[in-house]
């Protein structure tokens, strides 16, 4: 279990990332200064000023951060420590920093902070470190210094309005393919495409089409068995995810959210129900919509966890036999701290599983998976850094396992990806499921 922490700078700086390296090579101190000051002047104001001036450098936020805990309390990984290395320095030098400095802050902002906002609950002043790190990412974006894989995802978003270069026909084809597959199990099943006036627009993320098509299959089964009047669009706008939000390309973020919400409006649906994805929820619920001047989502967005809760509570899904074996539950930051769905999640877990074992800490206080906030999207170069940056999660899971938990339920794609790697690397030997996997397994289905 106890891995030595990465000795930060040396090993980290050995990571080759063409996105960052090439970006850095193109910078001049003049350009850096000009871009930084432009971002600071035109895009920041009272919040940045107050946060920076209010922080009393007390270090209370340190133990909120999984990177800090996983790196043997290395001060460089504490939330305020990351702000010190980035924002404070930028402000102190008034943007007069060199390209190497930009390399460091890009690394810190993009691969050493998941924007999970746990630290906001440990800072007495409620200083939003995630917001400050977002500003750093914005600066790096404006300077053209973003990890290659993240940037590539942002480009896919821009060219296709989805995160995985899925072409318009491939998306529809996948839906039809999953529909056909599922009809073998439930003959009357449909994935209605472009059904104007349906109650619900079921929205997904591109990885569900590319790698986890079974999730669309399962969702189709759940939605059909529950008799939900739903539809999926046949146009771009179907992908609710938004890595542009995490690279700092706010303009693209807005464009993606516009496409998504306008698709919902065009389909005349009353609600958008989305799959088990955390960051996408954040982007549609309280980030992307704001950039567009919608105070709240114009069409309500319901996360899968809340939707399952409704279905089970209202008896639309009946449980044939509860899942045997003890499970534990990962509270994803974007739907617990981000939406308070932890109690509903527990309702669903208890309704579907024989034995539920809490991991500690939990609910709003759960540790981040270390994959969210775009970090997993920084790609393979940072995989080990990400895994080692979350040893604390392995310890947390191990403790739950010691009390009997054999299965981890993680209702978020990023949590899923992150925890999958952690389970393998640390040899935890636990199974990992989405909540939908469990419901699909144990629900009553027509014979």
């Amino acid at each position, binding site marked *: 279990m106890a891995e030595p922490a990465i000795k930060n700078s040396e090993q980290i700086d050995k990571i080759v990332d063409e996105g960052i390296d090439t970006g850095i090579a193109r910078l001049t101190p003049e350009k850096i200064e000009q871009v930084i000051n432009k971002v600071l002047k035109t895009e920041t*104001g009272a919040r940045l000023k107050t946060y920076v001036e209010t922080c009393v450098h007390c270090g209370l936020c340190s133990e909120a951060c999984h990177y800090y805990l996983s790196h043997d309390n290395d001060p460089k990984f504490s939330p305020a420590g990351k702000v010190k290395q980035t924002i404070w320095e930028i402000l102190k030098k008034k943007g007069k920093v060199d390209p190497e400095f930009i390399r460091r802050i890009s690394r810190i902002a993009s691969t050493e902070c998941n924007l999970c906002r746990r630290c906001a609950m440990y800072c007495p002043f*409620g200083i939003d470190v995630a917001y400050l790190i977002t500003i750093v990412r914005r600066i790096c974006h404006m300077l053209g210094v973003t990890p290659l894989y993240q940037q590539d995802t942002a480009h896919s978003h821009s060219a296709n309005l989805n995160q995985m270069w899925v072409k318009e026909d491939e998306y529809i084809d996948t839906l039809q393919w999953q529909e056909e597959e599922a009809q073998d199990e439930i003959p009357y099943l449909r994935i209605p495409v472009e059904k104007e006036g349906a109650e619900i627009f079921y929205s997904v993320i591109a990885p569900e089409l590319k790698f986890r098509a079974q999730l669309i299959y399962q969702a189709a089964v759940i939605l059909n068995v529950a008799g939900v009047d739903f539809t999926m669009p046949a146009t771009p706008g179907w992908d609710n995810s938004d890595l542009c939000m995490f690279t700092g390309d706010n303009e693209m973020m807005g464009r993606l959210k516009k496409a998504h919400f306008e698709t919902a409006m065009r389909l005349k649906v009353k609600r958008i129900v989305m799959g088990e994805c955390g960051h996408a929820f954040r982007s549609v619920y309280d980030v992307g919509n704001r950039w567009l001047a919608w105070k709240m989502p114009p069409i309500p967005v319901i996360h899968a966890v809340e939707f399952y809760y409704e279905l089970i509570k209202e008896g639309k899904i009946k449980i044939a036999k509860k899942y045997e074996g003890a499970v534990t539950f990962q509270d994803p930051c974007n739907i617990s701290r981000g939406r308070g769905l932890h109690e509903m999640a527990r309702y669903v877990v208890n309704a579907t599983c024989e034995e539920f074992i809490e991991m500690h*800490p939990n609910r709003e206080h759960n540790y981040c998976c270390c994959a969210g906030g775009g970090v997993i999207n920084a790609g393979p170069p940072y995989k080990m850094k990400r895994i080692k940056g979350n040893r604390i999660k392995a310890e947390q899971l191990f403790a739950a396992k010691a009390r009997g938990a054999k299965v981890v339920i993680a209702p978020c794609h990023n949590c899923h990806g992150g925890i999958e790697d952690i389970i393998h690397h640390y040899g935890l030997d636990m199974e990992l499921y989405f909540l939908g996997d469990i419901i699909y397994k144990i629900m009553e289905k027509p014979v």
Partner: protein
Amino acid sequence: MHDIYNFVSGPLVWVSFIIFFGGILYRLISMAVLAKKKDVIVYEYMSLQYGLRSILHWIIPFGTVKWQKNPIFTIVTFTFHICLIFIPIFLFAHIILWKESWDISWWYISDIAADVLTIVVIASCIFFLVRRIVLPDVKYLTSISDYVILGIVAAPFITGFWTYHQWPGFRIMGIIHILSGEIMLAAIPFTRLSHMIFFPFTRGYMGSEFGAVRHAKDW
């Protein structure tokens, strides 16, 4: 000596009060204007109910998970902050000065109590100092200015204690005491001590976002 005394206890008091209250007002107004211009969402999402809910949890000792996890720090910081505000306001020696100057007075604490509480403040300052030097994460965040600020806060209490006990040189110390109190007042709006002013807003805003928008707790 009389000239200095008259100056620090006369015009300088006014100057420091003006800087203190004027500074607070200026900081609040200028920040509000800036927010209106650049961070309009702060106004849009600020919720009185949820803002206060969060503030309430954070100003109650052990009212948050964080406070519960660090009991020693919690006790120290709460007693420190309470004493810091309480002592100067309810100290007999201060009240008589206000009575003389402006004919206002109120309840005061005994000198023994004041002595004990002052020691608490000074001890807390030492605790904070040691923390800054000893704890690696805090040390990493610490700059010279943090020591200066700690000094600014500790000075009026150390000098006040000295003066009260009439230790050698207490006359000079008395003048330094008055001066250091004035420096602290003047420093509050314009240094990180401004957390006193901004705490309700930063915490309230986070509480509003967590409570009203995200339906979650932030403590």
